[in-house]
């Protein structure tokens, strides 16, 4: 075991699964790069270098650069998944989903149901999401709530290098279409990641901190912030449980219910736009199913209802932060009813 970056973890998962199963292919814009160009082949490995080296290892027949034509190649990935391959398609930034969403939500997601169960669509769509990169409104969105909304899709959001490798291998071996969200600010984060392949199950939450006072649920990069907040709060004598659900669809609501029943207090941290997002989804499910256990209002830590601004001065205050999570936890500790 060695320290690996999130980028390396993703790359390793792809490489190991491609080695294991010849049906796994990778496709997307510049996933290798340099095609038709006079210089270096495999020049890019995606804009942030995540798939670099795969083409040299597996050749251009299994690492396919595409024209800029997301409906075309995401649809082709769906069609290929329906007919014997296990494609991992690269949607680069999830913000681009608007040019190809139909192939995802009306085609890949619905094949199995529309066709009466006969299809399987082992498709993975990897995509970058999230703010902090100063990439402005069209390259900073989260949008996983849109995919979570759609029956037939699975949605994974790894929060660390270890999670990324295990969840991506699971995604590739999974027989349903999976949208795999990689936060672009996590790529350089490092932690211990086993060298051998392993899977992390979908729909099983991970508890990254345990404490009796408040339950915090967070996704992707927000898990890091929630852990930091929990550490800081521990200093104030507030003990937090931090839940990383790993996947929003399926969602391990049972674990969240259980923890909320124990703490009676819930804060949900979601980097996505605030309306109809995962914070509302979890709050609502808990308010419906663990109402009696709640000792204080559920708090949602989310950005305001605005596009993601470009200027660092604005983006920094736009995003959920450790401070905002700490405040929310303090607020749920302050208010509310006694233990039942």
């Amino acid at each position, binding site marked *: 075991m060695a320290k690996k970056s999130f980028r390396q973890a993703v790359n390793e998962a792809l490489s190991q699964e491609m080695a294991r199963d010849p*049906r796994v*292919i990778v496709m997307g814009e510049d996933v290798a790069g340099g095609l038709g160009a006079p210089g270096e082949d495999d020049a890019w490995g995606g804009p942030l270098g995540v798939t670099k080296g795969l083409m040299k290892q597996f050749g251009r*027949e*299994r690492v*396919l650069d*595409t*024209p800029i*034509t997301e*409906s*075309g*190649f*995401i*649809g*082709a*990935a*769906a*069609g*290929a*998944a*329906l*007919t*014997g*391959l296990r*494609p991992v398609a690269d949607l680069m930034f999830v913000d681009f989903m608007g040019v190809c969403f*139909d*192939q995802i939500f*009306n*085609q890949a997601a619905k*094949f*199995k*149901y*529309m*066709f*009466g*169960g*006969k*299809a*399987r669509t082992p498709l993975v769509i990897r995509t970058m999401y999230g703010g902090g990169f100063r990439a402005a409104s069209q390259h900073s969105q989260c949008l996983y709530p849109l995919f979570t909304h759609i*029956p*037939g899709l*699975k949605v994974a959001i790894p929060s660390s290098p270890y999670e990324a490798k295990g969840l991506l291998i699971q995604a590739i071996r*999974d*027989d*349903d279409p999976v949208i795999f969200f990689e936060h672009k600010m996590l790529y350089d984060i490092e932690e211990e990641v086993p060298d051998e392949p392993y899977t992390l199950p979908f*729909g099983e939450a991970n508890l990254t901190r345990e404490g009796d006072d408040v339950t915090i649920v967070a996704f992707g990069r927000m898990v890091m912030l929630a852990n930091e907040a929990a550490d800081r709060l521990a200093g104030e004598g507030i003990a937090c449980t931090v839940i990383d659900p790993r996947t929003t669809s*399926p969602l391990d609501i049972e674990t969240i219910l259980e923890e909320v029943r124990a703490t009676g207090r819930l804060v949900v941290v979601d980097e996505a736009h605030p309306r109809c997002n995962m914070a509302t989804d979890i709050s609502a499910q808990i308010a419906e199913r663990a109402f009696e256990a709640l000792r204080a209002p559920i708090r949602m830590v989310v950005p305001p209802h605005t596009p993601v601004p470009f200027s660092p001065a604005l983006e920094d205050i736009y995003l959920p932060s450790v401070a905002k999570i700490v405040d929310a936890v303090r607020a749920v500790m302050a208010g509310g009813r006694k233990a039942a």
Partner: protein
Amino acid sequence: MQLNRDELLRAYRDMCLIRQFEERVHAEFATGDIPGFVHLYAGEEASAVGVCMDLTERDTIASTHRGHGHCIAKGCDVDGMMAEIYGRKSGLCGGKGGSMHIADLDRGMLGANGIVGGGAPLACGAALSAKTLKTGAVAVAFGGDGASNQGTTAEAMNLASVWRLPVIFVLEDNGYAESTASAWSVGGDPVKRAEGFGIPATRVDGHDFFAVHEAAREAVARARAGEGPSFLHLKLARYFGHFEGDGMTYRAPDEVARLRAEKDCLKLFRRKVSEAGLLEGAALDAIEGEVATLIEGAVRRAKADAMPEPADLLTDVYVSY
């Protein structure tokens, strides 16, 4: 003409089957028994059958909202199709899909599609599977004149061109997208567009089974030889409305009657095979009779078959969840 007697009989049978299937669904729809949107293929039979003639079960097709003909030409079970259209559990999709989503993956029929232009990228994917797994299979994307203007169609053509995919784009130009004439909606020339993407393209009389088959055969051969995609622009006609319920006031009053009289692909087929002395009228009549029995049975069974059970609502969303 390179088809033997059996092949010719099969072609005629499939075209008849489509025609009678559609005429019957048209009649049954009028009774109110058939739910939903239904788009009939009658009049366009030479396309589906001519194109699919040289395909095997390994080969795949991606179809459209007007998919019954493609299903039949690709070998889907007619009872299963009819039951599906009636929303029965015995339907090809267990009643969950309906007319617009009939699929049979075992026959290489990748699905009708409710999204105009939705099928072309999927066909590229099937072609990519064939190429990557070296199965030698070919994929066909059917699409209408309306679909030819959809961005997905253009993207798929370019992708197929640069990836040299074994895929055939078949533009079924029946003159209309809903009530809008292709003469208006399709700027320029589809054949030139395809050539602009670097794809060999031809225009074919879509009423003529033999012309369609000839062009498709060449395209299939090109695909199997690893020479990449082809494009066929078929000019043909639909006999019924855009969907059942469409009054077709946008067409000339005698337009369909004239088409049926002068351009009908079944009549043309009969004339050609009899002029060439290939098949005698009696054999063709016999086929029509057999087909009628088949359709009658399909409708009778579909009507009698059970609806899906409540528990079926929740299955088939995921392989595992």
